[in-house]
């Protein structure tokens, strides 16, 4: 269902928006005008369209106008959303809008002629469609009907959607038009904030585009034997590396330049992170030059060893050999999507667990977590530096490098830290977002590696709910943001591509770039572009225990200092009778070929004792109370790796728990946190009554989306909460309506209908 025919080459520039022969405008329809962004133009539109809410009834359907622009398809209606609605609003998109880059497949149907066609770009349509079904990359399925609409206009809109959602050239993506407009009219709109969301969120996310960001990261991690290297300034060496990156201090620029020729894509080793014990995490591409391989390998490893205060060994992990590849991950994803939204809900129930297992999705998530945890052991306990090696070093390395750092460094579990990690290990390191997200519809390179990474983070969040500053809503919205072609963050295959393509674009549009290297695109980390301040509160995890958070121990309040001794000693603790729990041998045995130790052959012989000591390391770690500001390790048993329901089920009406779900507890703790903040505020005001006026405004600054109504608020669960919150499945999946009809009709499993028949036959 989701397979796409390869897109045929098409003309490069868009047609001018056509003036539609409008149906006699009714006063009611007249005001249904789309909200357009700078640079956004309406390509085609059709009136009297019905958006289908349920497949089994049209009673909830909405009437309105369907508009295709160069950014989105927009359905504009006056009808209120029936039954339930979204509880957050994307400032860039209306409630019924779908960004073009989120469209997976466009299907037109003529039900009287019983015809159906999957529309590619630049195609003809021989029938007048009665129905348009949009399959979205975020698992939604949106359906429109044209029974009352002008047939020609309907057809044109369908063709426009198909065409504009499947561009073949990067510069046709809306972000270029948007940014171009901003450069042309810098006065009328706010200048683009290319930074990491400084406006509004208070703290800037380092983007690692500059020398100083890397330098600060070296200092933050205490990597004294490493330096920022500028040899790639202007992308002189590699077009898929960032301009600045970090290398062992002992390697001179000249050597690096020389060595770079031997690496695939000239992608020489990149430093990722340093442990406080001195061991480093490094990633690099394979060495393609067989003759030079040994020599270069030796030199690089020597340099890494030299950068280690204890001159420790280097462990090389060949990721291609021990982890699923991007095609396998894509195949798993397609199966998962098929299972979650495409197949009939009831029919998949009986074999749900084995079907889920057969997608391999959870198995792959587990393998990434497991491999990363094994490397965490090497860095943390064995004090060896780890080199992640992968063919090009642009896919699995991004995933594993990030996961290791999230487990080891609490900074990356904060919002800003996590964003900087994605900048550092994905955006700057050349993860091919353009190809992997398939913004240009070349299906063969598509792979949801980034989603699987977010899924792994969700697994950790699920296991350690107090260890992360962000919520699962944040992770879900971050995934959705990869499908909005406005942000430079997820648009390109590497930083150089942005510079090259946008410079070309600027020249063609007569934009003066001045000293700038290419156009500046808005960053996804500037969340104020998408959400109001209040909606962004949903990103905050109310369970998070920040560094400065207070906590009560035995009734007395203590402020936590970052000492491991007193931290979170109130959290967990296993009854003495179970304290000597052990880790299953199989659990953490490394795959032999996944860990290749270099340099010291005798190290290899210690492999068996290595395995034992790794086991010991995990066993000890799990027997101790968790230090939320230290290392966290995943639990990896089949019972611990779960399906991320919010992300995959949010559009499925049958799977929605009304008035329930984890969000109800989230609501409850948010209100309590708000009360604690209020009290804390009052206490501080008492203590500094002189600065009373200055503090006044702080009272309104709650961190929480759900606020307390004073201290007596007993916080009843609001009616609108559901397991899909803040999303809503209503109208987002072509499914039977589940509300408004007797509940029993939708109960699956009990074959009551069959049984009644059986009974009838019986009599």
């Amino acid at each position, binding site marked *: 269902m989701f397979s796409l025919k390869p897109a045929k080459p098409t003309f490069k520039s868009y047609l001018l928006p056509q003036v539609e022969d409008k149906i006699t405008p009714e006063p009611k329809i007249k005001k249904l005008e789309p909200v357009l962004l700078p640079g956004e133009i309406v390509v085609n539109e059709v009136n009297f369209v019905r958006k289908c809410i349920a497949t089994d009834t049209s009673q909830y359907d909405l009437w309105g106008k369907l508009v295709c622009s160069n950014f989105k398809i927009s359905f504009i209606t006056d009808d209120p959303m029936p039954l339930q609605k979204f509880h957050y609003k994307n400032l860039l998109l209306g409630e019924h809008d779908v960004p073009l880059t989120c469209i997976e497949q466009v299907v037109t149907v003529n039900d009287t002629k019983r015809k159906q066609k999957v529309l590619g770009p630049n195609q003809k349509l021989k029938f007048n469609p009665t129905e348009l079904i949009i399959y979205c990359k975020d698992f939604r399925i949106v359906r429109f009907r044209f029974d009352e609409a002008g047939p020609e206009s309907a057809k044109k809109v369908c063709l426009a959607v198909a065409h504009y959602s499947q561009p073949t050239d990067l510069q046709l993506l809306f972000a270029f038009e948007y940014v171009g407009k901003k450069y042309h009219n810098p006065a009328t709109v706010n200048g683009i904030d290319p930074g990491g969301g400084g406006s509004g969120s208070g703290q800037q996310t380092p983007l690692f585009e500059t020398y100083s960001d890397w330098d600060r990261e070296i200092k933050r991690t205490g990597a004294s034997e490493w330096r920022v290297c500028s040899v790639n300034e202007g992308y002189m060496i590699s077009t898929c590396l960032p301009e600045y990156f970090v290398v062992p201090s002992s390697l001179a620029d000249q050597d690096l330049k020389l060595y770079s020729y031997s690496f695939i894509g000239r992608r020489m080793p990149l430093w990722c992170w340093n442990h406080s014990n001195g061991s480093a995490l490094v990633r690099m591409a394979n060495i393609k030059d067989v003759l030079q391989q040994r020599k270069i390998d030796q030199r690089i490893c020597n340099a890494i060893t030299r950068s280690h205060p204890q001159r420790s060994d280097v462990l090389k992990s060949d990721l291609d050999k021990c982890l699923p590849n991007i095609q396998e991950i894509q195949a798993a994803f397609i199966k998962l999507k098929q299972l979650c939204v495409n197949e009939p809900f009831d029919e998949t*129930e*009986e074999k*749900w*667990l084995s079907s889920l*297992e057969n997608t391999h999705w*959870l198995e792959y998530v587990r393998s990434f977590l497991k491999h990363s945890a094994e490397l965490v052991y090497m860095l943390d306990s064995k004090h060896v530096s780890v080199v992640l090696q992968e063919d090009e070093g642009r896919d699995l390395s991004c995933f594993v490098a990030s996961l290791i750092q999230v487990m080891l460094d609490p900074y990356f579990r904060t919002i800003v830290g996590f964003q900087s990690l994605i900048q550092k290990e994905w955006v700057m390191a050349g993860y091919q977002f353009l190809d992997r997200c398939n913004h240009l519809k070349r299906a063969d390179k598509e792979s949801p590696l980034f989603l699987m990474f977010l899924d792994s983070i969700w697994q950790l969040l699920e*296991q350690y709910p107090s260890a992360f500053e962000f919520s699962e809503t944040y992770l879900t919205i971050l995934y959705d943001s990869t499908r909005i072609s406005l942000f430079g963050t997820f648009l390109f295959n590497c930083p150089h591509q942005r510079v090259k393509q946008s410079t070309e674009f600027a020249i063609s549009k007569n934009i003066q770039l001045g000293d700038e290297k290419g156009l500046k695109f808005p960053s996804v980390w500037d969340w104020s572009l998408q959400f109001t301040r209040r909606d962004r509160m949903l990103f905050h995890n109310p*369970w998070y*225990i920040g560094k400065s958070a207070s906590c009560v121990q035995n009734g*007395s309040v203590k402020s936590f200092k970052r000492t491991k001794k007193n931290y979170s000693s*109130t*959290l*967990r*603790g296993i009854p*003495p*009778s*179970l*304290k*000597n*729990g*052990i*880790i*299953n041998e199989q*659990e953490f045995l490394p795959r032999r070929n996944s860990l290749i130790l270099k340099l010291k052959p005798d190290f290899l012989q210690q492999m068996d004792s290595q395995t034992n000591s790794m086991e010991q390391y995990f066993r000890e770690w*799990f027997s101790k109370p968790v230090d939320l500001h230290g290392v966290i390790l995943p639990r990896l*048993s*089949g*019972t611990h790796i779960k399906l991320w329901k919010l992300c995959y*089920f949010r559009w499925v009406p049958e*799977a*929605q*728990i*009304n008035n*329930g*779900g984890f969000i*109800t*507890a989230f609501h*409850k703790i948010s209100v*309590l946190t708000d009360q*604690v903040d209020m*009290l*804390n505020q*009052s206490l501080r*005001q*008492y203590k500094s009554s002189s600065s*009373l006026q200055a503090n006044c405004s702080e009272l309104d600054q709650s961190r929480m989306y759900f606020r307390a109504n*004073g*201290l*007596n608020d*007993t916080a*009843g*669960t609001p009616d609108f909460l559901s397991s899909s919150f803040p999303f809503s499945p209503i109208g987002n999946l072509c499914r039977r309506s589940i509300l408004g009809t007797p*509940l*029993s009709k939708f*109960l*699956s*499993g*009990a074959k009551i209908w069959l*049984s009644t028949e059986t009974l009838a036959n*019986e009599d």
Partner: protein
Amino acid sequence: VRNQQTLDKEVIYVCPFNGAVKGRLYVTNYRLYLRSVEIDPVVILDVPLGVIARIEKMGGASSRGENSYGLDITCKDMRNLRFALKQEGHSRRDIFEILTKHAFPQSHNLPFFAFVNEEKFAENGWMVYNPMSEYRRQRLPNEQWRVTFINEHYGLCDTYPSLLVVPYNATDDDLKKVAAFRSRNRIPVLSWIHPENQAVVMRSSQPLVGMSGKRNKDDERYLDIIRDANGQISKLTIYDARPSVNAVANKATGGGYEGDDAYPNAELFFLDIHNIHVMRESLKKLKDIVYPNVEESHWLSSLESTHWLEHIKLVLTGAIQVADKVSSGKSSVLVHCSDGWDRTAQLTSLAMLMLDSYYRTIVGFEVLVQKEWISFGHKFASRIGHGDKNHADADRSPIFLQFIDCVWQMSKQFPTAFEFNEQFLITILDHLYSCRFGTFLYSCESVREKEKVTERTLSLWSLINSEKAKHTNPFYTKELNRALYPVASMRHLELWVNYYIRWNPRIRQQQPNPVEQRYMELLALRDDYMRRLEELQITNNSKISNSSTSSASPSQMMSHVQTHF
């Protein structure tokens, strides 16, 4: 707990997770207690003898190999215990005999431990359930429903409680006639009435239709009176918990179901819930994949092949239909299976839990268990096999466990809707087997009365209600009259790891639950801040009254906060 220590012996505990542990084993008339020696940290085993299902000797005097001679104990709570002893001098004989005697007192003409237990609690759990007050809470009797004492001496039905609620328009004589047509005289009686629409949940056993398709005018009329009682024109909905095939098969043994011809004003649905034997086998399969080691290579498909969650789903689905029919469909409902004490109890109690928020409180849930399970004759004695050595008894089945699992599934889907927490449910299950309390002993009220259970034993609710904080869900939000429909889909049903796999230290989830823990910390923090603020306000107020100059005093600022004090 009055413990008579009867044995003290050095053994090796062959722990499947930690390997062999040397320790001292103590056996009393209540428990088996082992404390490790020579290892740190200390390993402790504390097992009430009631959980023991089976004790086997392993190895013989001539067995070779380390730890091959000893005892293998199968427990009812998803674990096995293995002790190795020295082969010399029949060292296991005394321990085997003492364990057997106290683990299976019924097979040795000994009383249950509950009858010698001399514990004292602050609360008296036997006061929790009073049928009359519970019916009054439901605003019964009313114009349509009356309380009858016809079963006061268990003359009508020996497995029913003495107090029953029946339609006002049915005489005691009618009830006797209906009893003749219902398996084991378990006539349709009221379990719950909807406070607004007056639709009711009724329970009974199957009608005695038999192969010849017998009819009974009194039963037919009785069901029509029930249908009529809430003044709705709709049909009476009958939910037969069984798969239709089983219901048909029951005709051969004199049972059956309400046919269309005989009951034109009723609509019958089968809910496809399997019988006690299927459930027992399913749990056995589940144990195989989780104990001692969790089947890792194909966890999800292994779990699927046990069908345990599928059965949970069917029970929940059935209960949702009952609840929805009563609440949205405004139609009265009759639930039955064959005898009306297993699947019927599951369905009525779960439906009531969905419909009535009172049952989601700690005391309300205790009432629910007391009423729908204990008083209406769920055969705890034979389903659990209290004190009985016959471990292979075909009457044993985890029906009540399955019910508690369904409750747990609901509490997972609605984290704020239940006053009790997971620990509460686990405590109930632990004492379902322990025989420390009289609560679950015997199969019906008539026998319990004969054995003077309430006078001679303690109630489990005494223990729980004396330490309520431990069993309270911090996220509980009191709500009235909201029907709660869980999603009975495999997508949401989970294996209850903290119960079924709790003996495996590697799998057990973090304790205490970090989500709850953080909330408790914040609650303590809030209280502390409030106390400090109050103190400051007192000192400040005295200052203000002294100087009275400041125009914007902090107490004015914080007026909205002050309301609390």
